[in-house]
């Protein structure tokens, strides 16, 4: 066990000790009169810290005359869940505290899971028309159990809140995929849904897209006849079709950084020119394509066309504009 984990155990023990004490203070007579309860507090504290197994109380119910069956209360901490999360010192400790009654009132503070503290309170049925002492005993034990529950809740809450914060970051990442990720058309969504089936099971949100196919993707961009124009001209409007391509996503959920890149085959249509065929590279909203006119009966045959998204041109051109303005100012002097 690591130092941090040991420390966490002692913190847990302190919490467990502190809270049941307050319960006893609220109802001192009742609690102190019942065997096992005060012992239980000590045992819970000691065992959670040291042995990871504890017994709250174990005793026979009052004599068989009142028909109460065995009252058994026990608990065990099978193991601590999870690991110390890097650097934060947070240790996820989960407890299951459960009461199992016979025909009496059943109160389940927590449901059962195999990997946690389990506290069972078993109670026999009350005799017809008669009160069962075990009921009071059980109530007292329930107070301890409830106190344990409060302590555990208090201990776990910061970790739950941290986890909830992580889920928010994940939700923000998914929102980014929809709003700023690669803009798929419905048929591309359908294709990728067919290709990327979820693994069986309840998990769905943790499977962020890793790579996606691009299929018959239409878009509008700007086309130029050479690299030089990329820095000097807004070019002319071009209609692009990406017959087939792919996208690769990269996410860092903690840092909330997201990006995608990809490559596609490209067909470019511009006004008064035959289609050109080539390839396109993209990084986030920036894309850059190169295509060649292949038509036999055209003066454009063999000529190259460069395509770029408006975002890419805006990225490339302002510095040059700045240089030009600086040059003009210099000339004016």
């Amino acid at each position: 066990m690591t130092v941090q984990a040991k420390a966490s155990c002692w913190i847990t023990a302190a919490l467990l000790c502190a809270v049941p004490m307050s319960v006893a203070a609220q109802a001192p007579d009742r609690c102190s009169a019942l065997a096992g309860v005060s012992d239980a507090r000590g045992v819970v504290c000691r065992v959670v810290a040291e042995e990871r197994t504890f017994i709250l109380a174990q005793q026979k119910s009052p004599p068989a005359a009142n028909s109460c069956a065995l009252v058994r209360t026990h608990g065990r901490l099978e193991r601590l869940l999870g690991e110390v999360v890097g650097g934060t010192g947070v240790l996820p400790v989960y407890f299951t505290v459960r009461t199992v009654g016979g025909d009496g009132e059943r109160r389940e503070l927590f449901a059962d899971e195999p990997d946690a503290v389990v506290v069972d309170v078993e109670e026999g049925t009350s005799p017809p028309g008669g009160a069962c002492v075990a009921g009071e005993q059980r109530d007292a034990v329930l107070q301890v159990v409830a106190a344990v529950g409060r302590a555990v809740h208090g201990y776990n809450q910061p970790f739950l809140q941290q986890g909830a914060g992580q889920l928010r970051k994940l939700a923000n990442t998914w929102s980014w995929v929809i709003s700023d990720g690669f803009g798929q058309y419905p048929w591309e969504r359908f294709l990728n849904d067919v290709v990327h089936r979820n693994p069986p099971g309840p998990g769905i949100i943790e499977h962020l897209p890793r790579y996606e196919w691009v299929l018959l993707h239409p878009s509008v961009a700007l086309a130029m006849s050479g690299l030089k124009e990329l820095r000097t001209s807004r070019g002319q409007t071009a209609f692009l079709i990406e017959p087939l391509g792919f996208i690769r996503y990269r996410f860092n959920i903690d840092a909330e950084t997201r990006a995608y890149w990809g490559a596609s085959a490209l067909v470019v249509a511009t006004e008064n020119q035959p289609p050109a065929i080539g390839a396109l590279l993209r990084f986030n909203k920036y894309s850059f394509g190169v295509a060649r006119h292949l038509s036999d009966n055209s003066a454009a045959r063999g000529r190259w066309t460069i395509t770029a998204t408006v975002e890419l041109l805006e990225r490339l051109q302002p510095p040059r504009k700045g240089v030009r303005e600086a040059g003009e100012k210099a000339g004016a002097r």
Partner: protein
Amino acid sequence: MPRQVVFLVHGIGDNRKGWSKSVVEYLDDVGERYSTVEGPISDSIVFKEIAYGEVFDTQLARWDADVDAVAANGIVPQAKDAVAWMDGITEGGFVWTHIGDVVLFLSRTTRAAAVSEVVAQMAKAIADEGDPETEFSIIAHSMGTAMTMEAVNALATPIPALGWTGLPPAFRFREVMMLSNTSRFLQRPDLRADTESRLLPKKFRATGLCSTYRHIYHQRDPVSWVRRFSLAASPDTGYVAAPIEHYYDRNIHAFTHYLEHPAVHGAVLRLPRAANLPLPAWRKATDEYGGARKFGGAFVKPSEVDSFVGDLDQTVKPDPEREIDLVGQLKYVAELLRKMV
């Protein structure tokens, strides 16, 4: 009594932030019908609105912008025709605001994005709750029931790489009310609502995450008619199936129309205090809505109800269980919703 927190999860349609205000007001109003209810129910229940519509709205707006750009190009006019079917999807057309949400929910990416949003909102509310005695419940409507099924299962699933270890092992929702339940209709093959899902009563399935699961459907509601949810479980296990039939609004599918029925609002009113609506009074109120078609509100005479039902019946029904006829089933649902809304 333990503090009561109830998540309200909306269904299809236009549901922006603040959508739950009318639902809470409606519940306050129906509470006034019973002298035993102490004050407005919203004073004793904390209602937490869950909203995920923005995910779908963003997707539709993005498609709309992309389609506009493609359609506006004058180089390949045929492109405009090719995407014409997607044009105007954000202009409030009935099909896109209603069936569009369903189609987006059936798509893996938008489904996961919306579920993730719901999970984040629920997780925050649960984690921020300081009182361990607090009891959480859910009232979900229409597509929100399928969303809830997905979200609760996701909440309970640890994501170690993210630092989420799932709900506390013992966590359980007290009441899960599925109004016009679509959790089977819209389930994905790898998470079936009646078998793999954990949003089932604990007493019915050991891994269940709720104490009581109320499956409530209006007999004439087309939305929950297609591949209707069912469970071979008795009320002893915490499963309550409640078919209802009442006519107060032409939109019998509406959230508030479901809440109008005592079988629905009675369970809500009893959450903070059973004495709010003692069992005999609850049964009496529910029985008054049984038998002959109970009507009011938008319907004045029995003949109006008969005419309305007759109009609905004129639509040719598809086979509700045929999984490969999803398009036919959605068309049927859309046509009836159009008649009702």
